């Protein structure tokens, strides 16, 4: 059974049908691409998958668990993490603390223990620090741990956003246009990072991207959205050679 199973997902905003009868099935460990022209509804799909929007109809199953209608926090706890098209780090916080925010639900102690600094507070904070540093090392960000997140170079901010998402210990990682605004060198490095995340964490990744070099370089399967509907679905090369897809992108 697939890790992520989405059936007939649909949502309207007023009279606009933003997503209609959207189906997708992502196997565990797969690197899956969601592409389509601007305004096709790709980010809306991510917002539906993470509970930012509630679907009008359809079902979302993660590892057999029904996530339809669940709140954002519950979906995060169920194992879906994401990054954003426009980077949304906690810019005023140190890099390390950004990752620790991602660890929030995995290292419990009560507010009172935090105020009174009881022994468990020190123990848990120490564990969190170690875990966060470990994650930063994996992404080669350990030297930046004390930097304010907004002062990181652009490419590193993208990496930190992925590290922060990984800190929530997800089963499924959603990347929303990770290569947006990157130069070819940064994009190449990013492709290595994404592949590495998949292999190192045995992660299932669904990504939105416009950069065709990245898409054809790392995605194994693709779904193409156009005007909120699935236009094509299948192995990357088959989809990219599909005449309908070419027409949707370039016009006829």
């Amino acid at each position, binding site marked *: 059974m697939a890790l992520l199973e989405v059936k007939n997902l649909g949502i309207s905003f007023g009279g606009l049908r933003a997503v209609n009868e959207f189906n997708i099935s992502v196997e565990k460990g797969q690197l899956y691409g969601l592409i389509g022209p601007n305004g096709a509804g790709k980010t809306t799909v991510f917002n539906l998958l*993470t509970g*930012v929007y509630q679907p009008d109809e359809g079902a979302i199953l993660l590892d057999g668990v029904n996530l339809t209608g669940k709140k*954002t*926090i519950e979906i*995060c*706890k169920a194992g879906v*993490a*994401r990054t*954003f098209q426009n980077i*949304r*780090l*906690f*810019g*005023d*916080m140190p890099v390390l*603390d950004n990752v*620790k*925010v*991602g660890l*929030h*639900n995995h*290292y419990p*102690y009560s*507010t009172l223990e*935090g*105020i009174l600094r009881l022994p468990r*507070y020190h123990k*848990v*904070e120490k564990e*969190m620090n170690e875990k966060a540093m470990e994650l930063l090392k994996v992404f080669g960000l350990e030297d930046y741990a004390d930097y304010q997140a907004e002062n990181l170079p652009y490419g590193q901010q993208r990496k930190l956003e992925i590290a*922060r998402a990984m800190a*929530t210990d997800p089963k499924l990682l959603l990347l929303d246009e990770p290569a947006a605004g990157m130069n070819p060198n940064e994009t190449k490095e990013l492709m290595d990072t994404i592949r590495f995340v998949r292999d190192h964490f045995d992660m299932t990744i669904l990504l939105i991207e416009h950069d065709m070099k990245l898409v054809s370089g790392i995605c194994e399967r693709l779904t193409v959205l156009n005007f909120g509907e699935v236009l094509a679905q299948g192995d990357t090369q088959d989809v990219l050679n599909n005449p309908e897809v070419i027409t949707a992108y370039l016009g006829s």
Partner: protein
Amino acid sequence: MSFAAHLINGISLGSVYALIALGYTMVYGIAKMLNFAHGDVIMIGGYVVFVTVSGMGMNPLASIIISMAVCTILGVTIERVAYRPLRGASPLAVLITAIGVSYLLQNIALLVFGSDTKAFTNVVTLPNLELFDGQLVIKSVTIVTVIVNIIIMVGLTLFVRKTKIGRAMTAVSEDQGAAQLMGINVNGTIAVTFAIGSSLAAIAGVLLCSAYPALTPYTGSMPGIKAFVAAVFGGIGSIPGAFIGGILLGVIENLSKAYISSQLSDAIVFSILIIVLLVKPTGLLGRKIQEKV
């Protein structure tokens, strides 16, 4: 010597403003709303101590703890009932609701305790500090208030920077949506913020009434507004800014009372707010506001 006395009186007043401003700034910093009812929570805190100490003869320390508990519950309830339904509404709607809550608390107090001024018993029973053979007296309540201020300021800063819940608060203040997607309970985090802000209000209430021992349902109103000015002056959202703003405001108010005019002192205080907003809209220690381009 009289200048020094005025200065110390100013610090005494300012340290109370600072304590109230800490509560304002904390709630504003995290929830991005001005809780205009904060001053009235202080007044309720004062009444709780008045009733338990003067009415029931309770130990002052125990009564302060009860007052903190009452104010915490009150603050969380206000947030739950009045502010949470407006999450996502325009800031103006929230602001007007806060003013409404403020009047509600004042009128409840008026109904329950009456409009007459209650003589508050100073709970700080330590001896005053006398310098230069008694020429300069520093009241013990002033010293206690300044020390409490510093403890709370350091404690709050450590709490916000070094604990999980504090980091969640910062995350919520920066980007509620992203925080939620990291698994942070935004409503819960804001409730904790109100709980802490309101328990500080209880402490502020006790120290305010100990320094200026006349308690009426409007006791919290003017200091609340001035503390708001202090918070804006120091840079709203900034914890050390609230402290510095509070002290400066108290000193300015007292010095203008002493050397310019006691009638004009409030006018001078509020003029400062206008000047600060014109010259440095983010306050002394306020963060720069960045435009995303």
